[in-house]
C-alpha cells in the first residue's frame, strides 16, 4: 500500500543548498508515496531544482525567516496548511537540530506523537518505523496508531540519496500565522566554524581517536593521518568531553553517524554508544592495545598494539608513497 502524499523537510546547508539528509529522505519518500512535497523555512526558490530532481513536485515555502527560529514558525505554517485541508499521510524530517524543533512543535499543534531516531520505514501494513535501541544491538519496529499525519524523524545516512530526474518543483507559499509569545525568540547572528578537508559525515575515510591516545597533543597523529588519506578526523566522546577536540568531531549516539569506505579507530574501546555511529562503515580497522576491546568485534582488520608505535609508522609509510 503506497501512501498518497508525504511531506519531507527541505533542510538547508549554511550555503543554502538542500542538505544531504533531505536528499536521503527524499529517496525513501519517493518509494513509499505517490506524491512527495518538501517544506522549507525559507523562500524556497533555491531548492526547487534540486528537490525536483530528487522527486518532489512542490516546495511549500514559508518565505524568508531570517532572524527567526525555524521550529515554531515552520510548525505553525504546516499546522495551518493542514487545518486548511492539505494534510499529508506522513511528515518526514531528519533527527537534526531544526528537524526536532519543528517536529516537537508540530506534534503539540496536531496532538500526534513523533517517532524519532529511525533508520527505516515500511508502509505495507500501516506506517511502521524501525529504530535501533541499546546501541544498535536491537531493532524496534513501531506502528503509528494515532491517525494521519504521522510524524517521523530519521537518523542521517539511513537511506541513499539518488536523483530521479524530475524537473524543478513548483514553489507555493505557506503562510506563517502569528505565533504570539511563543515566536518571540530571535536569531541574532550565525557563526560558521572554518573547516578544511572533507566533512566528517561525508568523507570516504575517517580516522578517529579515543582516550587511548593518552593526551590531547597526540590527536595531531590522527589529524595528520586523516590528511594523508584525504579523510576527516573523528573522535570518541571521551576525548570530546575532555576538551581535546570540539564536539563536531564526535562520532556516535550523541554525535555524528558516519558510513565511510574505511573507518580507522585508534585507541577507542568500542562502547555501544560509539559503535552505533560507525558500525555501518564499509570497512573498519581498529588499533587497540587490549585484545579484549569490544571494537575488535566489528573490525575487519584488528591490530593489537600501541597507537604510539603503530600510527607514526603508518603515517611514515603513507607519506613515503
Amino acid at each position: 500500500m503506497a501512501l498518497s502524499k508525504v511531506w519531507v523537510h527541505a533542510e538547508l546547508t549554511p550555503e543554502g543548498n538542500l542538505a544531504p539528509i533531505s536528499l536521503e529522505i527524499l529517496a525513501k519518500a519517493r518509494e513509499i508515496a505517490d506524491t512527495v512535497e518538501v517544506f522549507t523555512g525559507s523562500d524556497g526558490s533555491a531548492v526547487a531544482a534540486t528537490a525536483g530532481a530528487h522527486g518532489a513536485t512542490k516546495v511549500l515555502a514559508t518565505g524568508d525567516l531570517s532572524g527567526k527560529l525555524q521550529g515554531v514558525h515552520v510548525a505553525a505554517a504546516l499546522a495551518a496548511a493542514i487545518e486548511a485541508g492539505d494534510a499529508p499521510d506522513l511528515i518526514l524530517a531528519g533527527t537534526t537540530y531544526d528537524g526536532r524543533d519543528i517536529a516537537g512543535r508540530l506534534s503539540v499543534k496536531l496532538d500526534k506523537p513523533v517517532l524519532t531516531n529511525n533508520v527505516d520505514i515500511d508502509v505495507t501494513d500501516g506506517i511502521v518505523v524501525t529504530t535501533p535501541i541499546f546501541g544498535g544491538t536491537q531493532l524496534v519496529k513501531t506502528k503509528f496508531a494515532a491517525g494521519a499525519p504521522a510524524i517521523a524523524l530519521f537518523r542521517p545516512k539511513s537511506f541513499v540519496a539518488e536523483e530521479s530526474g524530475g524537473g524543478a518543483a513548483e514553489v507555493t507559499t505557506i503562510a506563517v500565522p502569528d505565533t504570539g509569545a511563543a515566536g518571540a525568540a530571535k536569531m541574532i547572528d550565525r557563526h560558521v566554524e572554518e573547516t578544511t578537508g572533507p566533512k566528517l559525515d561525508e568523507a570516504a575515510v575517517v580516522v578517529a581517536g579515543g582516550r587511548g591516545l593518552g593526551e590531547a597533543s597526540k590527536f595531531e597523529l590522527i589529524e595528520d593521518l586523516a590528511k594523508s588519506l584525504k579523510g576527516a578526523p573523528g573522535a570518541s566522546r571521551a576525548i570530546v568531553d575532555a576538551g581535546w577536540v570540539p564536539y563536531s568531531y564526535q562520532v556516535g549516539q550523541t554525535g555524528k553517524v558516519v558510513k565511510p569506505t574505511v573507518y580507522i579507530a585508534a585507541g577507542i574501546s568500542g562502547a555501544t554508544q560509539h559503535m552505533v555511529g560507525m558500525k555501518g562503515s564499509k570497512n573498519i580497522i581498529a588499533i587497540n592495545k587490549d585484545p579484549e576491546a569490544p571494537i575488535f568485534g566489528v573490525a575487519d582488520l584488528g591490530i593489537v598494539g600501541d597507537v604510539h608505535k603503530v600510527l607514526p609508522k603508518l603515517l611514515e609509510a603513507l607519506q613515503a608513497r
Partner: protein
Amino acid sequence: MNVVVCVKQIPDPADPGALNADHTLKRDGKLILDESDSYGVEMALQLVDKAGDGEVTLVSMAPNGEVSGLRTALAMGAAKAILVSDDALKGAGALDTAKVLAAAIGRVEGADLILAATESSDGYTGTVPEQIAAILDLPSITFAKSVEIADGTVKVQRQTEAGYDECESPLPALVSVTAGVVEPRYPSFKGIMAAKSKPVDTVTVADLGIDSALVGWAGAGQEIVAVDAAPEREAGEVIEDDGEAHLKIVEFLDGLKVL
C-alpha cells in the same frame, strides 16, 4: 530569578538495558539522575546565584515514587521538587511526557526560565523540551552551549551543524542545554544532608488535572510491533603488532583502493 529544571531519573546507563515483556524500558531497579540533566541543574544554580534572588525547582516524571535522582539534584543545591508518579504513565511517549511535565511546571509560581537537556540518555528523542514549550506557549531556544541572562532576556549560543547561532529570547522562556554547557558540581556532604529534608511534592496524573485515559499506553498513539536482534557485523582478522602491523594496514587500504 526562578528557574525550573526538568530532570529525568533513569536506569544506570552503565548497566545493560532491557525491555519488559510489554516492550517498555525496564525501570524497576534504582534510578539515577540522568547525567545530561546535571548540566541543567548546574546552569540553573549558577543563574539564580548570579541574579541574587529566587530558587531552583525540579520537576520529574518517574515510576514507583522514585526520588533518588531528585535527591542528587537537591543535594547540588535545588530548593524543592515536584515528582509525577503514576502507574497510568507506563508506556508514555514523549508527547505524553511533555503534557505531564508542562502541567507540573504550571504549578510552580513565577517561573522565569525552564531548563531541560537537549536529549535524555535513555530515550533520547530530543523532542520533549520543545513539546513542553509548545504546550506552555513559550518561546524556546534548544541546543544551548552557553546561556546568559541580562535585562529580562536570555542570550544563548545555539549549537548548529556548522558552528553556532547567537539567539535571544524574552523571559519567560524554555532553553534546552547540551552536555558541557557548564561543569556540574559534586554534591557536598552538607548538601547531601540538607537534601534529605527538602520538600518533594509527589503528585498523580489526576492531581494535575490530566485524564489518565489520554496518557501512557492509552494515549501514546504508537504501538510496538516487533523487537529483533540487529544483524551482527562479523569480526575479521585480528593480529598482534610485531612492529610491522602498519604494513598490514597499508596493504588493506591498498586493497580498497583508497590510497
